[in-house]
């Protein structure tokens, strides 16, 4: 629970971003896949959805069994919705709003991402 509350307090909307954190080079991320970024003591899953030319970020913690693992999940689409599937039990979550798609797990905290000069930046509330 503590882990969940901490990560939620970092999340914010596009207009209220206080910090754009420079995470890593774009080329460090696998194509159509994710990697885990450490920010303060938190873990953020960042996905390079190269097929759609889009980037997404969400908490690395899967709320189902509290495993730090979502960055290792497969990404894809359900209809138009971009999603990630947890490697453990294949719970899927929207990358756009964090809602659980195929079950009733709690929603993920998601974070804005921007790419500038070959670097990936993640937006945080603090």
């Amino acid at each position, binding site marked *: 629970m503590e882990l969940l509350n901490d990560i939620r307090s970092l999340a914010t909307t596009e207009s209220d971003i206080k910090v754009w954190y420079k995470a890593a080079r774009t080329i460090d991320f696998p194509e159509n896949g994710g990697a885990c970024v450490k920010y303060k003591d938190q873990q953020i899953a960042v996905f390079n959805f190269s097929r759609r030319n889009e980037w997404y970020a969400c908490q690395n913690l899967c709320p189902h069994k509290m495993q730090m693992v979502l960055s290792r999940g497969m990404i894809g689409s359900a209809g138009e919705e971009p999603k990630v599937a947890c*490697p453990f039990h294949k719970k899927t979550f929207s990358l756009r709003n964090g809602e659980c798609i*195929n079950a009733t797990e709690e929603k993920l905290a998601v974070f804005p991402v921007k790419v500038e000069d070959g670097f990936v930046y993640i937006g945080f509330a603090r």
Partner: protein
Amino acid sequence: MKRIIVVGNGMVGYKFCEKLRKQGVAAEVIVYGEEPRPAYDRVHLTSFFSGKTAEDLLMAPASWYAEHHIVLHTGELVTEIDRQQKTITTHTGKTDRYDYLVLATGSSPFVPNVKGVERDGVFVYRTIEDLNQIIDYGKKVTRAAVLGGGLLGLEAGKALVDLGLETHIVEFAPRLMPRQLDEQGSVILQHKLSQLGIAVHLNKSTKEIAGNGKLDGLEFVDGSFLPIEMLVISAGIRPRDEVAKGCGLEVHPRGGVVVNDFLQTNDENIFAIGEVAVHNNMVYGLVAPGYEMADIVVRQIAGDFSKTFQGFDMSTKLKLMGVDVGSFGDALGETPGCIPIAFQDKHNGVYKRINISADGKYLLGGILVGDAKQYNLFHQMAANKMALPAQPESLIIGAPGKGEEGAGVKNLPDSAQICACENITKGDLVFQITEKGVKTLDDLKRSTKACTGCGGCTPMVNDILKITLESLGHTVKKSICEHFDYTRQELYDIVKIKNIKTYDALLDSHGKGDGCEVCKPLVASLLASAWNELIVSQATIQDTNDRFLANIQRGGTYSVVPRIAGGEITPQKLMAIGRIAEKYGLYTKITGGQRIDMFGARVDQLPEIWEELIDEGFESGHAYGKALRTIKSCVGSTWCRYGVQDSVSFAIYIEDRYKGLRAPHKLKGAVSGCIRECAEAQSKDFGIIATEKGWNLYVCGNGGSRPQHAKLLVTDVDTETCVKLVDRFLMFYIRTADPLTRTATWLNKMEGGLEYLRDVIVNDSLGIGEALEKEMAELIANYACEWKKVVEDPALRAQFKHFINEDSTDSTLSFVEMRGQKCPPDWNKK
């Protein structure tokens, strides 16, 4: 805010709390439970013996109550209720005030008044404490009995078997499960139990539990004597109504608090639910009606009085020591004039009985032992008074073909309850499909919550989905997901014919959308089966195990399994594994496939560990892949005085031949050196057993959840022929099986069955034998150890780290110690 006190923290008491909070009822909730721990799953108490801990059985951890603002007092027994003051008092003298009181005190085991029940070694079976005592005492004895052959008694019997004790079941009635089964059903069940080594004694009235201090046997009224050292009494339940009686609530002469259809006692502010409640002269000793009662009381407190308790269908389906038993409706045929039809197959241990109404129109109830696949359908037919076919006997005598069950679902009325856990009817499901446009099982689960409880209704829900979609004119194709309108076999052909090497190329040319967690690993497996190229070069379409070439385990660490072909290993290599495991602090365990698994490696440690393993001469064991795992062997003629062929050498040859082979599911094989079959080859996807003249080849066996013996494909073939046939067999399986289908299921679904398979593989009826062999030869030629490639390639190695932006490791990883090694903590402890 209203103040609700719940007396009793068992399964039903807990369910009340859960439902109350789910409904969002604003009320203070205080729970008093007599037992020292929060509510746990009593129904699965026997799983305690198969390694579950008391923690695993908890309905919810203590923290759940706090998070949901429920005050839980464990180890505190409510001893008095003052209805005037609306207060309760506990055994410690504490008093508390309520607006509503919910009695969920449950029941205690009924102990008959037999001489000697106080002796040492006599136990009841209800709580974890009871169980712990049974386990402790069971270590000192060898012979034990259960008094009572009902549902609970048989569960207790299972517990004794699990303890490794010689087990007897003693029943007063002339049959087992007298409330659910008739004599023939009992005979079949008894026969099955005797195969498990359980002796059943019927018609036995116990006169005395004999002994001196501790018991030494049971003396029966008929003069016989059963020598035993431990006795578990399971002779029914007695509602815990003491505290209700003490405050003048109405109790039933046979025990239990009398309630009306609203589950109210004669005090409108006091409810009784679960096994302590008596509704219409009935005590309900199952958990489902208890949950229903909890639900009704929650609704009332929330102001909804529309639902009342109208009794509960006590039909049950369960697995007793591996035997399916179903009993539904009027199981024993007590309705006047009813006509029973029965079918019995002693050889296979199957008994089916249906009771038909006197006019022959309706199914009233029945019994299924040994094969209860039709339980759901029959139960619904009876509950909904569906018209029977002209020859009702065809229901149980005709071999249940594939189409039949689906057709049965078609005729169910809309009111038929399909999902009992969430109370969803066929009409609810059909509405979602026809009116809301639901087209997939996942969407149906989401929109209705069907299948999300026990999951037992999933096949029926799937049938309803399929039939309803078909009735709407949709063709229901076994396409793999929304991104590919093809079956696995079609995609395999496309990949081969069009020479497609990457997932993206296939998605662009034959798919739509952006893929998903279903089609990505499936195509990854197809590509590997077709070309056997390095899978990590397309890392992000692999399941996590294949992406990191290791098995992800609880907590997010991985396990490592080097190949130990045929289970043969030198002392030097054994020491190397020991040294490496010790260096990286890994938990080690011998696997079922004669090799060694090392658990608890962080993702960043994997390449280092493998570098050392490869230096010591090891290769990947592909334990993470839908691939060939192991070829188990016995020592055979090299050492064994019975062996007729060198099974170890052959097993090593076979394992080396097919190592790295990727398939629709994992593959396991074995080679036994003689007919004694010590390598258990008949439980494998392919098994080879030595004969005086050569080898017998068995195929499509399976261990796991649905064990199935492998079928004999050919006898007495020489080594070369044997290998050729295995080549063809494996390649044919890879070409044609559905995704994630083991060879056993593949054969079960195959039209023509074993005869057809033998025709294709041995007689080459399709003329593809040579092509299959050639494809296999290409795959074998293309083999390379994946781990060696990764270890040698800095770019691939770089992918094995937890954080992309720094070198630290995951600080949330933690371990606990168990028997001198490390283990991950419980799922829910984080």
